[in-house]
């Protein structure tokens, strides 16, 4: 009884501190809950696709829809090969995206090196020009590109897609590589020059090895652009060189009621990339933010 007033004062002294602490804690909890909720919202559709692909074929299109597979089944993954030549589409995607990546990274790095190391008026104009080119929507160039490829007799070939993807990717590769090459000290190639290398030799022997992170970032992005392309493949291929994106889209029109194999194909197409991107996210972040801040 006696010490009650004392406690009261003690309490009132403490309240402001506790309240502030509590407020901060509540705020943090609010932040965490909201973040998790939003993250779930963004992850949900892909997880749903993944789960659907693992359902028995009929269950994928059942009403009411189920969330969790009643039994896990790889039926859809086996079936997708029966409907369409999925394997061939994947190989086409891999070949065209892979080849165009190698070419555009090399060509882009070479150009970026030239512009980064030698101050020249043409170089600066060229750089400005690549920027303008990137603003041009590819859908509009796709029309004349189609005509050119047609005139060259390359419709429905892997080479056509490789050429187109490379051209689309080169300006992008230049912009990304310039960012990296500018950060490589000039002393590196100057030293190589003094040791008797040609400029090209210095580039190959010294600059390329030290800018590996930049090359990796550029390669990831150019590969993704080609791998994910739908428009050019839709426009320029019909049977032989068709890539996976166009192939998968055909599940929708051809087998409207059996969408299970479609989900399996979509997952097979994107899951390796999603997992890969988790491992290389350091490069993705640097590539995206660099590309973004640069432009």
């Amino acid at each position, binding site marked *: 009884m006696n010490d009650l007033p004392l406690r009261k004062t003690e309490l009132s002294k403490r309240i402001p501190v506790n309240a502030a602490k509590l407020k901060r804690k509540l705020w943090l909890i609010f932040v*965490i809950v909201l973040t998790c909720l939003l993250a779930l919202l*963004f992850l949900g559709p892909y997880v749903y696709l993944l789960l659907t692909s693992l359902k028995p074929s009929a269950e994928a299109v059942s009403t009411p829809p189920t969330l969790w597979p009643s039994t896990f089944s790889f039926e859809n993954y086996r079936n997708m090969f029966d409907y369409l030549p999925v394997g061939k589409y994947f190989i086409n995607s891999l070949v065209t995206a892979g080849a165009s990546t190698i070419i555009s990274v090399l060509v882009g790095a070479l150009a970026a090196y030239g512009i980064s190391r030698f101050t020249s008026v043409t170089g600066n104009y060229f750089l400005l020009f690549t920027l303008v080119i990137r603003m041009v929507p590819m859908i509009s160039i796709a029309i004349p590109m189609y005509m050119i490829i047609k005139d060259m007799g390359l419709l429905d070939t892997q080479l056509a897609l490789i050429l187109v993807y490379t051209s689309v990717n080169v300006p992008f590769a230049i912009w990304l590589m310039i960012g990296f090459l500018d950060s490589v000290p000039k002393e590196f190639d100057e030293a190589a020059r003094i040791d008797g290398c040609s400029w090209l030799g210095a580039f190959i022997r010294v600059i390329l090895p030290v800018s590996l992170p930049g090359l990796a970032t550029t390669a990831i992005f150019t590969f993704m652009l080609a791998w994910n392309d739908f428009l050019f493949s839709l426009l320029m291929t019909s049977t032989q060189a068709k890539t996976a994106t166009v192939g998968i889209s055909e599940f929708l029109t051809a087998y409207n009621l059996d969408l299970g194999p479609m989900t399996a194909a979509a997952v097979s197409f994107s899951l390796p990339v999603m997992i890969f991107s988790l491992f290389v*996210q350091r490069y993705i972040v640097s590539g995206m933010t660099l590309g973004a801040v640069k432009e």
Partner: protein
Amino acid sequence: MKLKNGALSTMFFMPAALFMGVFLVYPILLLLKDSFFQIDLMNPAAREFVGLANYIDSLTSDRFLKALGNTVVYIIVAVGAEFIIGLILALLLSNAFKGSQIIRTVLLSPLMLAPLVSGLIWKFMLNDQFGIINWVLYKIGIISDPHQILWLSDSRFALISTIIADIWLTTPFIMLVLLAGIQGISKSLYESADIDGANKWHKFRYITVPSIIPVASVALLIRIIDAARTFDIVWVLTQGGPGFSSELLSTYMYKTLTRYGQVGQSSAMAVIFIIILLVLSSFFISKIWSPRKKNA
């Protein structure tokens, strides 16, 4: 010395210039030329010079104007929502808490997803027969019949359905760029604001916002251009239909070329499209882009 440098640098970017010349510059010139002709894809030899007729036809055609209007709506709604959600996510994730790193990583992975796959996922989920979206809405009592909303075949919903897929796919990109911008702000700014007794809102309004404006403008510019040329998502979800309710410039141009075989007409539309985008982006760039500084 200057000359030698010029020659050397030219030598290095020659291969790139060659590629860009043949497959980017030449196509643009060809596009420009074709836009003045009447060309039938089935019979390309019979081309006829028609002057500005293709342009006039496009600009006075209801379908083209409808596609243009839809594209503008698409850009404003999609990019607007992406920016707001992306900013909220970036602000949330800039509070370092246990697991924030993991969530950030998880949110990054959809960035590598093909727009086509995003279209497929949403086509699946928005299906009026077995789609899960309608069932969720039904279960929580928003709609009275699980087949009530025909997301993709009702002209009132088709465009918004494609926008939903776009928002889902690209909000993480905006989040990432904004987060990078926020993390680049010097901590000392916030510390001195704390000393001055600034509250959260003040810190956001007077430190965070001004600091991320350059990064935000770049993110917006990239997204506006990308949204303007959206093709995959719309093609997979609705092919521009029903009617022309979700027709964008890109799908309309594609149809004009492949379905109707009108090369000249689609070229004229493409040129108009390029001009609009170049004007738009040069406006943005003149505001934000400072010429690259060479650290000699």
